[in-house]
Protein backbone atom coordinates (compact mmCIF):
# COMPACT_ATOMS: atom_id res chain seq x y z
CA UNK A 1 0.00 0.00 0.00
CA UNK A 2 1.23 3.41 -0.95
CA UNK A 3 0.21 6.44 1.07
CA UNK A 4 -1.30 8.99 -1.29
CA UNK A 5 -2.31 11.51 1.32
CA UNK A 6 -1.49 11.91 4.97
CA UNK A 7 -2.18 14.99 7.10
CA UNK A 8 0.87 17.25 7.52
CA UNK A 9 2.61 16.85 10.86
CA UNK A 10 2.75 20.64 11.11
CA UNK A 11 -0.99 20.75 11.75
CA UNK A 12 -1.92 19.70 15.26
CA UNK A 13 -4.10 16.59 15.37
CA UNK A 14 -7.08 18.52 16.74
CA UNK A 15 -10.56 19.38 15.52
CA UNK A 16 -10.65 23.03 14.45
CA UNK A 17 -13.21 25.58 15.57
CA UNK A 18 -14.03 26.48 11.95
CA UNK A 19 -17.55 26.00 10.61
CA UNK A 20 -18.23 23.11 8.20
CA UNK A 21 -16.84 23.95 4.77
CA UNK A 22 -14.86 26.99 5.97
CA UNK A 23 -12.09 28.11 3.62
CA UNK A 24 -9.68 28.60 6.52
CA UNK A 25 -9.42 24.84 7.06
CA UNK A 26 -8.24 24.24 3.50
CA UNK A 27 -5.82 27.17 3.56
CA UNK A 28 -4.33 25.99 6.88
CA UNK A 29 -3.72 22.62 5.31
CA UNK A 30 -2.04 24.10 2.22
CA UNK A 31 0.20 26.34 4.30
CA UNK A 32 1.23 23.48 6.60
CA UNK A 33 1.92 21.19 3.63
CA UNK A 34 4.01 23.87 1.95
CA UNK A 35 6.13 24.59 5.03
CA UNK A 36 6.60 20.88 5.55
CA UNK A 37 7.49 20.36 1.90
CA UNK A 38 10.08 23.12 2.04
CA UNK A 39 11.52 21.59 5.22
CA UNK A 40 11.45 24.92 7.09
CA UNK A 41 9.13 24.08 9.98
CA UNK A 42 11.80 24.45 12.63
CA UNK A 43 12.66 27.98 11.57
CA UNK A 44 9.23 29.36 10.67
CA UNK A 45 7.21 31.74 12.84
CA UNK A 46 3.52 32.43 12.24
CA UNK A 47 1.82 35.72 13.02
CA UNK A 48 -1.90 35.07 13.51
CA UNK A 49 -4.55 37.74 12.91
CA UNK A 50 -7.68 38.94 14.63
CA UNK A 51 -10.50 37.23 12.78
CA UNK A 52 -11.78 33.68 12.59
CA UNK A 53 -8.16 32.53 12.20
CA UNK A 54 -7.08 34.09 15.50
CA UNK A 55 -6.64 30.57 16.88
CA UNK A 56 -4.28 29.55 14.05
CA UNK A 57 -1.60 29.20 16.72
CA UNK A 58 -3.49 26.22 18.14
CA UNK A 59 -3.31 24.42 14.81
CA UNK A 60 0.10 25.24 13.33
CA UNK A 61 2.80 23.27 15.10
CA UNK A 62 5.10 26.28 14.84
CA UNK A 63 6.23 29.17 17.00
CA UNK A 64 3.31 31.62 16.79
CA UNK A 65 2.18 34.97 18.01
CA UNK A 66 -1.09 36.85 17.65
CA UNK A 67 -1.05 40.41 16.34
CA UNK A 68 -3.57 43.15 17.05
CA UNK A 69 -6.25 43.54 14.37
CA UNK A 70 -4.47 44.33 11.10
CA UNK A 71 -1.00 44.80 12.57
CA UNK A 72 0.43 41.43 11.59
CA UNK A 73 2.69 42.84 8.84
CA UNK A 74 4.25 45.28 11.35
CA UNK A 75 4.78 42.51 13.87
CA UNK A 76 6.23 40.28 11.17
CA UNK A 77 8.55 43.14 10.21
CA UNK A 78 9.81 43.38 13.78
CA UNK A 79 10.41 39.62 13.90
CA UNK A 80 12.08 39.44 10.49
CA UNK A 81 14.39 42.38 11.20
CA UNK A 82 15.82 40.72 14.28
CA UNK A 83 15.62 37.14 12.95
CA UNK A 84 16.57 37.54 9.29
CA UNK A 85 17.34 33.85 8.83
CA UNK A 86 13.93 32.72 10.06
CA UNK A 87 10.86 32.41 7.87
CA UNK A 88 8.05 34.72 8.96
CA UNK A 89 4.52 34.60 7.63
CA UNK A 90 1.28 36.32 8.50
CA UNK A 91 -2.10 34.69 8.08
CA UNK A 92 -4.82 37.32 7.70
CA UNK A 93 -8.45 37.77 6.74
CA UNK A 94 -9.75 40.46 4.42
CA UNK A 95 -11.02 42.77 7.15
CA UNK A 96 -7.76 42.38 9.00
CA UNK A 97 -5.44 42.90 6.04
CA UNK A 98 -7.34 45.07 3.60
CA UNK A 99 -9.28 47.32 5.98
CA UNK A 100 -7.84 48.07 9.39
CA UNK A 101 -4.38 46.84 8.43
CA UNK A 102 -4.22 48.57 5.04
CA UNK A 103 -1.38 50.85 6.04
CA UNK A 104 0.70 48.08 7.60
CA UNK A 105 0.55 45.82 4.53
CA UNK A 106 1.13 48.72 2.14
CA UNK A 107 4.29 49.82 3.91
CA UNK A 108 5.61 46.32 4.51
CA UNK A 109 5.24 45.86 0.74
CA UNK A 110 6.87 49.21 -0.02
CA UNK A 111 9.84 48.22 2.11
CA UNK A 112 9.99 44.87 0.40
CA UNK A 113 10.05 43.04 3.71
CA UNK A 114 10.99 39.45 2.93
CA UNK A 115 7.91 38.04 4.61
CA UNK A 116 5.00 35.95 3.33
CA UNK A 117 1.38 37.07 3.56
CA UNK A 118 -1.38 34.47 3.42
CA UNK A 119 -4.54 36.45 2.79
CA UNK A 120 -7.91 34.73 3.02
CA UNK A 121 -10.65 36.64 1.21
CA UNK A 122 -14.14 35.50 2.16
CA UNK A 123 -15.76 38.82 1.32
CA UNK A 124 -17.03 39.41 4.84
CA UNK A 125 -16.00 39.96 8.43
CA UNK A 126 -16.49 36.35 9.43
CA UNK A 127 -15.70 36.45 13.10
CA UNK A 128 -17.96 39.34 14.01
CA UNK A 129 -20.92 37.85 12.18
CA UNK A 130 -20.82 38.73 8.51
CA UNK A 131 -20.49 42.50 8.19
CA UNK A 132 -19.30 44.16 5.00
CA UNK A 133 -15.58 43.95 4.30
CA UNK A 134 -13.55 46.02 1.83
CA UNK A 135 -13.68 42.88 -0.34
CA UNK A 136 -17.47 42.49 -0.33
CA UNK A 137 -18.66 42.34 -3.96
CA UNK A 138 -21.02 45.09 -5.16
CA UNK A 139 -24.61 44.15 -4.57
CA UNK A 140 -23.83 41.60 -1.88
CA UNK A 141 -25.97 41.82 1.23
CA UNK A 142 -24.25 41.65 4.56
CA UNK A 143 -25.45 42.49 8.06
CA UNK A 144 -23.98 45.98 7.68
CA UNK A 145 -24.97 46.45 4.02
CA UNK A 146 -28.50 45.05 4.27
CA UNK A 147 -29.52 46.50 0.92
CA UNK A 148 -26.47 45.16 -0.83
CA UNK A 149 -23.14 46.94 -1.23
CA UNK A 150 -23.64 50.08 -3.25
CA UNK A 151 -20.60 51.73 -4.79
CA UNK A 152 -22.12 55.17 -4.26
CA UNK A 153 -22.44 54.54 -0.56
CA UNK A 154 -19.78 52.01 0.31
CA UNK A 155 -17.23 52.24 -2.45
CA UNK A 156 -15.71 49.44 -4.49
CA UNK A 157 -14.14 46.08 -3.62
CA UNK A 158 -10.37 46.16 -3.18
CA UNK A 159 -7.98 44.15 -5.36
CA UNK A 160 -5.01 43.93 -3.11
CA UNK A 161 -2.55 41.68 -4.97
CA UNK A 162 -3.07 43.73 -8.14
CA UNK A 163 -2.37 46.93 -6.19
CA UNK A 164 0.68 45.53 -4.45
CA UNK A 165 2.04 44.01 -7.66
CA UNK A 166 2.86 47.56 -8.78
CA UNK A 167 5.37 47.98 -5.94
CA UNK A 168 9.02 47.10 -6.52
CA UNK A 169 9.31 45.58 -3.04
CA UNK A 170 6.79 42.88 -3.90
CA UNK A 171 8.34 39.75 -5.39
CA UNK A 172 5.22 37.66 -5.72
CA UNK A 173 1.54 38.59 -5.78
CA UNK A 174 -1.21 36.21 -6.79
CA UNK A 175 -4.85 35.36 -6.28
CA UNK A 176 -6.01 31.79 -6.11
CA UNK A 177 -9.16 30.03 -5.02
CA UNK A 178 -10.20 27.01 -2.99
CA UNK A 179 -13.43 26.07 -4.75
CA UNK A 180 -12.20 23.10 -6.80
CA UNK A 181 -9.49 20.48 -6.72
CA UNK A 182 -7.69 22.08 -9.65
CA UNK A 183 -7.75 25.51 -8.00
CA UNK A 184 -6.68 24.12 -4.65
CA UNK A 185 -3.65 22.60 -6.36
CA UNK A 186 -2.82 25.95 -7.96
CA UNK A 187 -3.35 27.65 -4.61
CA UNK A 188 -0.81 25.32 -3.05
CA UNK A 189 1.71 26.18 -5.76
CA UNK A 190 1.12 29.92 -5.23
CA UNK A 191 1.64 29.55 -1.48
CA UNK A 192 4.88 27.71 -2.19
CA UNK A 193 6.03 30.57 -4.40
CA UNK A 194 5.10 33.20 -1.82
CA UNK A 195 7.38 31.37 0.63
CA UNK A 196 10.11 30.78 -1.92
CA UNK A 197 10.55 34.50 -2.63
CA UNK A 198 11.13 34.97 1.10
CA UNK A 199 13.62 32.09 1.23
CA UNK A 200 15.53 33.65 -1.66
CA UNK A 201 15.39 37.14 -0.13
CA UNK A 202 13.59 38.57 -3.16
CA UNK A 203 10.96 40.59 -1.31
CA UNK A 204 7.45 40.29 -0.03
CA UNK A 205 5.23 37.45 -1.22
CA UNK A 206 1.46 37.59 -0.97
CA UNK A 207 -1.26 35.16 -2.00
CA UNK A 208 -4.90 36.06 -1.76
CA UNK A 209 -7.06 32.95 -1.44
CA UNK A 210 -10.77 33.06 -2.11
CA UNK A 211 -12.24 31.02 0.67
CA UNK A 212 -15.77 30.08 1.67
CA UNK A 213 -17.67 31.46 4.62
CA UNK A 214 -20.86 29.38 4.29
CA UNK A 215 -22.08 30.58 7.68
CA UNK A 216 -22.17 34.26 6.83
CA UNK A 217 -23.01 33.76 3.18
CA UNK A 218 -25.96 31.79 4.54
CA UNK A 219 -25.50 28.91 2.12
CA UNK A 220 -24.52 25.27 2.51
CA UNK A 221 -20.84 24.40 2.19
CA UNK A 222 -21.48 22.92 -1.27
CA UNK A 223 -23.45 25.99 -2.36
CA UNK A 224 -20.59 28.11 -1.07
CA UNK A 225 -18.34 26.66 -3.78
CA UNK A 226 -20.86 27.83 -6.35
CA UNK A 227 -20.98 31.19 -4.61
CA UNK A 228 -17.24 31.54 -5.10
CA UNK A 229 -17.61 30.69 -8.78
CA UNK A 230 -20.63 32.85 -9.44
CA UNK A 231 -20.18 35.82 -7.11
CA UNK A 232 -16.52 36.05 -6.17
CA UNK A 233 -14.72 34.99 -9.34
CA UNK A 234 -16.29 37.65 -11.59
CA UNK A 235 -15.00 40.31 -9.19
CA UNK A 236 -11.73 38.61 -8.32
CA UNK A 237 -9.90 37.19 -11.32
CA UNK A 238 -7.40 34.48 -10.47
CA UNK A 239 -3.82 34.73 -11.55
CA UNK A 240 -0.28 35.74 -10.77
CA UNK A 241 0.10 39.50 -10.93
CA UNK A 242 3.78 39.65 -10.08
CA UNK A 243 6.39 36.94 -10.29
CA UNK A 244 9.96 38.03 -9.58
CA UNK A 245 12.09 37.20 -12.61
CA UNK A 246 14.49 35.30 -10.34
CA UNK A 247 11.70 32.87 -9.48
CA UNK A 248 11.38 31.61 -13.06
CA UNK A 249 8.12 30.81 -14.76
Amino acid sequence: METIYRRPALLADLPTHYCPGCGHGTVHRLVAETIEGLGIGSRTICVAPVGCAVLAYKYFVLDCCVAAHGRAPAMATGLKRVLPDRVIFTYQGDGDLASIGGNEILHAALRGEPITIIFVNNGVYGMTGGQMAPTTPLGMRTTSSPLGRDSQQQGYPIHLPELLAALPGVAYAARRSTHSVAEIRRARQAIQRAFTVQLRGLGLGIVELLGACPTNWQVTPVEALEFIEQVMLPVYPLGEFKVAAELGA
Partner: protein
Amino acid sequence: MARELWKGNEALAEAAVRAGAEAFFGYPITPQTELLEYMARRMPELGRTFLQAESEIAAIHMVYGAACAGVRALSSSSSPGISLMQEGLSYLAGSEVPCVLVDIMRGGPGLGNIQPSQSDYFQLTRSAGHGDFHPLVLAPSTVQEAVDLMYASFDLAFGWRTLVILAGDGTLGQMMEPVEMPPMRALAVERPDWALTGAAGRSPRVISSLYLDAAELEQSNLRLQAKLQQMAATQQRWESFCVEDADYLVVAFGTVARIAQSAVRAARRAGIRVGLFRPVTLWPYPRQPLDAICPQLRGVLVVEMNGGQMVEDVRCVVRERVPVRFLGHLGGVIPMPDEIEAELAQLVSLSGRAAFS
Protein backbone atom coordinates in the same frame (compact mmCIF):
# COMPACT_ATOMS: atom_id res chain seq x y z
CA MET B 1 34.85 57.93 32.95
CA ALA B 2 34.82 61.57 31.90
CA ARG B 3 31.66 63.61 31.93
CA GLU B 4 30.51 64.93 28.59
CA LEU B 5 27.75 67.28 27.51
CA TRP B 6 24.75 65.41 26.12
CA LYS B 7 21.38 66.50 24.86
CA GLY B 8 18.61 64.65 26.75
CA ASN B 9 17.11 62.84 23.76
CA GLU B 10 20.48 61.72 22.41
CA ALA B 11 21.69 60.70 25.85
CA LEU B 12 18.62 58.49 26.25
CA ALA B 13 19.35 56.89 22.88
CA GLU B 14 23.00 56.21 23.68
CA ALA B 15 22.07 54.83 27.10
CA ALA B 16 19.63 52.43 25.42
CA VAL B 17 22.37 51.34 23.02
CA ARG B 18 24.74 50.73 25.94
CA ALA B 19 22.00 48.84 27.80
CA GLY B 20 21.94 46.36 24.95
CA ALA B 21 19.04 47.56 22.81
CA GLU B 22 19.11 45.52 19.62
CA ALA B 23 16.20 47.10 17.78
CA PHE B 24 14.60 50.54 17.58
CA PHE B 25 11.40 51.34 15.72
CA GLY B 26 9.95 54.85 15.76
CA TYR B 27 8.18 57.67 14.03
CA PRO B 28 9.23 61.33 14.02
CA ILE B 29 7.52 63.68 16.46
CA THR B 30 8.76 66.79 18.23
CA PRO B 31 10.13 67.08 20.90
CA GLN B 32 11.46 63.51 20.73
CA THR B 33 12.83 63.34 17.19
CA GLU B 34 16.54 63.62 18.06
CA LEU B 35 16.28 60.27 19.78
CA LEU B 36 15.07 58.63 16.56
CA GLU B 37 17.66 60.49 14.48
CA TYR B 38 20.46 59.42 16.80
CA MET B 39 19.32 55.80 16.54
CA ALA B 40 19.19 56.09 12.75
CA ARG B 41 22.95 56.71 12.77
CA ARG B 42 24.00 54.65 15.75
CA MET B 43 22.15 51.35 15.42
CA PRO B 44 23.34 50.45 11.89
CA GLU B 45 26.89 51.43 12.89
CA LEU B 46 26.70 48.60 15.45
CA GLY B 47 24.92 46.20 13.11
CA ARG B 48 21.68 46.55 15.07
CA THR B 49 18.17 47.25 13.82
CA PHE B 50 16.79 50.71 13.17
CA LEU B 51 13.60 51.24 11.23
CA GLN B 52 11.45 54.30 10.74
CA ALA B 53 7.91 52.93 10.81
CA GLU B 54 4.94 54.21 8.83
CA SER B 55 3.14 55.25 12.02
CA GLU B 56 3.38 54.91 15.77
CA ILE B 57 0.86 52.07 15.51
CA ALA B 58 3.22 50.17 13.24
CA ALA B 59 6.26 51.17 15.32
CA ILE B 60 4.93 49.66 18.53
CA HIS B 61 3.84 46.49 16.74
CA MET B 62 7.31 46.18 15.21
CA VAL B 63 8.68 46.51 18.74
CA TYR B 64 6.18 43.83 19.78
CA GLY B 65 7.38 41.52 17.00
CA ALA B 66 11.07 42.05 17.78
CA ALA B 67 10.43 41.68 21.50
CA CYS B 68 8.62 38.38 20.84
CA ALA B 69 11.97 37.15 19.57
CA GLY B 70 13.37 37.95 23.02
CA VAL B 71 15.54 40.89 21.98
CA ARG B 72 15.78 44.22 23.76
CA ALA B 73 13.60 46.47 21.60
CA LEU B 74 12.41 50.00 22.16
CA SER B 75 10.53 52.90 20.68
CA SER B 76 10.17 56.54 21.56
CA SER B 77 7.52 59.11 20.89
CA SER B 78 5.63 62.05 22.33
CA SER B 79 2.10 62.36 23.66
CA PRO B 80 -0.04 62.06 20.46
CA GLY B 81 2.15 59.21 19.29
CA ILE B 82 1.78 57.42 22.62
CA SER B 83 -2.00 57.68 22.21
CA LEU B 84 -1.67 55.79 18.92
CA MET B 85 0.57 53.18 20.50
CA GLN B 86 -1.93 52.26 23.18
CA GLU B 87 -3.28 49.34 21.17
CA GLY B 88 0.16 47.76 21.06
CA LEU B 89 0.90 48.58 24.70
CA SER B 90 -2.20 46.68 25.76
CA TYR B 91 -1.23 43.63 23.68
CA LEU B 92 2.33 43.76 25.06
CA ALA B 93 0.90 43.88 28.58
CA GLY B 94 -1.59 41.09 27.91
CA SER B 95 1.10 38.77 26.60
CA GLU B 96 3.75 39.95 29.12
CA VAL B 97 6.28 40.74 26.43
CA PRO B 98 8.88 43.17 27.79
CA CYS B 99 9.99 46.35 26.04
CA VAL B 100 10.97 49.94 26.74
CA LEU B 101 9.27 53.10 25.53
CA VAL B 102 10.25 56.75 25.91
CA ASP B 103 7.58 59.45 26.11
CA ILE B 104 8.91 63.00 25.78
CA MET B 105 5.64 64.68 26.69
CA ARG B 106 4.22 67.73 24.94
CA GLY B 107 1.15 69.91 25.39
CA GLY B 108 -2.34 68.62 24.56
CA PRO B 109 -5.14 67.77 24.11
CA GLY B 110 -5.29 67.25 20.39
CA LEU B 111 -2.38 68.57 18.42
CA GLY B 112 -1.68 70.94 21.30
CA ASN B 113 1.85 72.15 20.83
CA ILE B 114 5.44 71.02 21.08
CA GLN B 115 6.16 72.74 24.39
CA PRO B 116 7.11 70.74 27.48
CA SER B 117 4.27 69.24 29.45
CA GLN B 118 3.46 66.52 31.96
CA SER B 119 -0.02 65.96 30.63
CA ASP B 120 0.48 62.23 29.95
CA TYR B 121 0.54 61.36 33.66
CA PHE B 122 -2.93 59.84 33.49
CA GLN B 123 -2.30 58.26 30.10
CA LEU B 124 0.88 56.53 31.28
CA THR B 125 -0.09 55.55 34.80
CA ARG B 126 -3.82 54.93 34.42
CA SER B 127 -4.83 54.36 30.83
CA ALA B 128 -1.94 53.21 28.68
CA GLY B 129 -4.36 50.93 26.83
CA HIS B 130 -7.50 48.89 27.34
CA GLY B 131 -7.65 46.21 30.00
CA ASP B 132 -6.20 46.08 33.49
CA PHE B 133 -2.52 46.87 33.50
CA HIS B 134 0.03 49.48 34.46
CA PRO B 135 3.40 49.99 32.84
CA LEU B 136 6.35 50.68 35.12
CA VAL B 137 6.75 54.45 34.63
CA LEU B 138 10.05 56.16 35.39
CA ALA B 139 10.29 59.96 35.51
CA PRO B 140 13.86 61.29 35.47
CA SER B 141 14.53 64.91 36.34
CA THR B 142 18.05 65.29 34.96
CA VAL B 143 19.78 63.99 31.87
CA GLN B 144 22.09 61.89 34.05
CA GLU B 145 19.14 60.31 35.76
CA ALA B 146 17.49 59.69 32.40
CA VAL B 147 20.62 57.84 31.31
CA ASP B 148 20.82 55.81 34.51
CA LEU B 149 17.14 54.85 34.41
CA MET B 150 17.31 53.95 30.73
CA TYR B 151 20.35 51.79 31.47
CA ALA B 152 18.36 49.93 34.14
CA SER B 153 15.09 49.81 32.19
CA PHE B 154 15.65 46.65 30.12
CA ASP B 155 16.64 44.65 33.19
CA LEU B 156 13.45 45.81 34.87
CA ALA B 157 11.39 45.09 31.75
CA PHE B 158 12.78 41.58 31.28
CA GLY B 159 12.93 40.79 34.99
CA TRP B 160 9.25 41.60 35.46
CA ARG B 161 8.15 40.85 31.90
CA THR B 162 6.64 44.28 31.80
CA LEU B 163 6.48 47.40 29.77
CA VAL B 164 8.78 50.16 31.07
CA ILE B 165 8.06 53.75 30.06
CA LEU B 166 10.52 56.58 30.60
CA ALA B 167 8.48 59.74 30.94
CA GLY B 168 10.22 63.03 30.36
CA ASP B 169 9.01 66.37 29.15
CA GLY B 170 10.23 68.44 26.23
CA THR B 171 12.64 70.31 28.51
CA LEU B 172 14.45 67.11 29.49
CA GLY B 173 14.60 65.95 25.89
CA GLN B 174 16.06 69.19 24.63
CA MET B 175 18.46 70.29 27.39
CA MET B 176 22.21 69.73 27.43
CA GLU B 177 23.80 68.53 30.62
CA PRO B 178 27.05 66.87 31.64
CA VAL B 179 26.60 63.12 31.75
CA GLU B 180 28.70 60.16 32.69
CA MET B 181 27.72 57.41 30.27
CA PRO B 182 27.66 53.85 31.58
CA PRO B 183 29.84 51.22 29.88
CA MET B 184 28.70 49.39 26.75
CA ARG B 185 27.10 46.09 27.62
CA ALA B 186 27.68 42.94 25.62
CA LEU B 187 24.50 41.85 23.84
CA ALA B 188 22.66 38.95 25.40
CA VAL B 189 23.38 35.72 23.53
CA GLU B 190 20.79 33.60 25.35
CA ARG B 191 17.17 34.29 24.58
CA PRO B 192 14.53 33.97 27.31
CA ASP B 193 12.62 30.69 27.54
CA TRP B 194 9.45 32.24 26.11
CA ALA B 195 11.07 33.79 23.02
CA LEU B 196 9.95 32.86 19.51
CA THR B 197 12.93 31.70 17.49
CA GLY B 198 11.48 28.89 15.39
CA ALA B 199 10.71 25.62 17.15
CA ALA B 200 13.99 23.87 16.38
CA GLY B 201 14.60 20.97 18.78
CA ARG B 202 11.85 22.02 21.16
CA SER B 203 8.08 22.22 21.23
CA PRO B 204 6.44 25.29 19.68
CA ARG B 205 5.87 28.43 21.73
CA VAL B 206 2.91 30.76 21.52
CA ILE B 207 2.74 34.43 22.46
CA SER B 208 -0.84 35.59 22.72
CA SER B 209 -3.08 37.77 24.83
CA LEU B 210 -6.21 35.81 23.90
CA TYR B 211 -8.12 33.81 26.52
CA LEU B 212 -11.56 33.05 25.17
CA ASP B 213 -12.76 31.41 28.35
CA ALA B 214 -13.92 33.84 31.06
CA ALA B 215 -12.40 31.87 33.90
CA GLU B 216 -9.09 31.53 32.05
CA LEU B 217 -8.91 35.23 31.28
CA GLU B 218 -9.68 35.99 34.89
CA GLN B 219 -6.88 33.66 35.97
CA SER B 220 -4.47 35.34 33.60
CA ASN B 221 -5.57 38.73 34.89
CA LEU B 222 -5.23 37.66 38.51
CA ARG B 223 -1.68 36.55 37.78
CA LEU B 224 -0.99 39.94 36.19
CA GLN B 225 -2.58 41.70 39.14
CA ALA B 226 -0.46 39.73 41.58
CA LYS B 227 2.63 40.73 39.66
CA LEU B 228 1.54 44.37 39.63
CA GLN B 229 1.01 44.22 43.38
CA GLN B 230 4.45 42.79 43.86
CA MET B 231 5.88 45.53 41.69
CA ALA B 232 3.92 48.13 43.63
CA ALA B 233 5.37 46.81 46.87
CA THR B 234 8.99 46.61 45.73
CA GLN B 235 9.56 49.04 42.88
CA GLN B 236 8.67 52.43 44.35
CA ARG B 237 11.45 54.93 43.76
CA TRP B 238 11.62 58.49 45.00
CA GLU B 239 13.95 61.19 46.21
CA SER B 240 13.41 63.62 49.02
CA PHE B 241 15.10 66.89 49.92
CA CYS B 242 15.00 68.62 53.32
CA VAL B 243 12.07 66.58 54.61
CA GLU B 244 13.48 65.59 58.03
CA ASP B 245 12.18 68.65 59.85
CA ALA B 246 9.66 69.79 57.23
CA ASP B 247 6.27 71.18 58.19
CA TYR B 248 5.36 71.63 54.55
CA LEU B 249 6.03 69.54 51.53
CA VAL B 250 6.25 70.30 47.85
CA VAL B 251 5.57 67.29 45.61
CA ALA B 252 6.72 67.45 41.99
CA PHE B 253 8.22 65.10 39.41
CA GLY B 254 10.53 65.38 36.43
CA THR B 255 11.99 68.76 35.52
CA VAL B 256 9.34 70.55 37.58
CA ALA B 257 10.93 69.04 40.68
CA ARG B 258 14.14 70.92 39.86
CA ILE B 259 12.30 74.23 39.76
CA ALA B 260 10.49 73.28 42.94
CA GLN B 261 13.82 72.54 44.60
CA SER B 262 14.99 76.14 43.97
CA ALA B 263 11.73 77.36 45.44
CA VAL B 264 12.16 75.13 48.49
CA ARG B 265 15.67 76.48 49.05
CA ALA B 266 14.43 80.06 48.82
CA ALA B 267 11.51 79.36 51.16
CA ARG B 268 13.89 77.77 53.65
CA ARG B 269 15.99 80.95 53.55
CA ALA B 270 12.77 82.84 54.26
CA GLY B 271 12.23 80.64 57.30
CA ILE B 272 9.58 78.18 56.10
CA ARG B 273 10.42 74.59 57.07
CA VAL B 274 9.61 73.01 53.75
CA GLY B 275 10.86 69.93 51.97
CA LEU B 276 10.57 68.39 48.52
CA PHE B 277 9.29 64.94 47.62
CA ARG B 278 10.04 63.77 44.10
CA PRO B 279 8.50 60.53 42.82
CA VAL B 280 10.87 58.77 40.42
CA THR B 281 8.38 56.02 39.68
CA LEU B 282 5.01 57.44 38.65
CA TRP B 283 3.69 53.90 38.64
CA PRO B 284 4.04 52.39 41.13
CA TYR B 285 3.51 55.67 42.95
CA PRO B 286 5.81 55.96 45.99
CA ARG B 287 2.91 55.93 48.42
CA GLN B 288 4.64 54.42 51.42
CA PRO B 289 7.44 56.99 51.73
CA LEU B 290 5.01 59.85 51.13
CA ASP B 291 2.63 58.43 53.69
CA ALA B 292 5.46 58.18 56.21
CA ILE B 293 6.17 61.91 55.93
CA CYS B 294 2.51 62.95 56.29
CA PRO B 295 2.16 62.88 60.10
CA GLN B 296 4.73 65.67 60.54
CA LEU B 297 3.18 67.94 57.89
CA ARG B 298 0.85 70.91 58.02
CA GLY B 299 0.28 71.24 54.30
CA VAL B 300 1.26 69.93 50.90
CA LEU B 301 1.75 71.75 47.62
CA VAL B 302 1.73 69.78 44.38
CA VAL B 303 3.25 71.42 41.32
CA GLU B 304 2.79 69.98 37.84
CA MET B 305 2.81 70.99 34.19
CA ASN B 306 -0.75 69.83 33.66
CA GLY B 307 -4.24 70.50 34.97
CA GLY B 308 -3.73 68.44 38.13
CA GLN B 309 -3.06 64.77 37.54
CA MET B 310 -0.45 63.47 40.01
CA VAL B 311 -2.19 65.56 42.66
CA GLU B 312 -4.90 62.86 42.72
CA ASP B 313 -2.34 60.28 43.84
CA VAL B 314 -1.04 62.69 46.46
CA ARG B 315 -4.57 63.30 47.78
CA CYS B 316 -5.10 59.54 47.96
CA VAL B 317 -2.06 59.22 50.21
CA VAL B 318 -2.62 62.35 52.33
CA ARG B 319 -6.29 61.45 52.92
CA GLU B 320 -7.29 64.95 54.09
CA ARG B 321 -4.95 64.86 57.05
CA VAL B 322 -3.64 68.25 55.89
CA PRO B 323 -4.56 70.65 53.09
CA VAL B 324 -3.27 69.79 49.62
CA ARG B 325 -2.90 72.74 47.23
CA PHE B 326 -2.20 72.48 43.56
CA LEU B 327 -0.21 74.75 41.28
CA GLY B 328 -0.32 73.84 37.63
CA HIS B 329 0.60 75.31 34.30
CA LEU B 330 -0.54 73.91 30.99
CA GLY B 331 0.27 74.21 27.36
CA GLY B 332 4.01 74.53 27.79
CA VAL B 333 4.04 77.29 30.39
CA ILE B 334 6.71 76.42 32.93
CA PRO B 335 6.08 77.18 36.62
CA MET B 336 8.59 79.66 38.11
CA PRO B 337 10.24 79.38 41.54
CA ASP B 338 8.72 82.65 42.78
CA GLU B 339 5.22 81.41 41.93
CA ILE B 340 5.87 78.26 43.91
CA GLU B 341 7.14 80.35 46.82
CA ALA B 342 4.03 82.50 46.69
CA GLU B 343 1.83 79.39 46.72
CA LEU B 344 3.80 78.07 49.68
CA ALA B 345 3.23 81.32 51.56
CA GLN B 346 -0.51 80.98 50.84
CA LEU B 347 -0.47 77.41 52.10
CA VAL B 348 1.28 78.48 55.29
CA SER B 349 -1.23 81.23 55.97
CA LEU B 350 -4.19 78.95 55.19
CA SER B 351 -3.01 76.06 57.28
CA GLY B 352 -3.65 78.35 60.23
CA ARG B 353 -0.87 77.37 62.58
CA ALA B 354 2.47 79.02 63.19
CA ALA B 355 4.87 77.50 60.78
CA PHE B 356 7.90 79.69 61.15
CA SER B 357 10.83 78.48 63.12
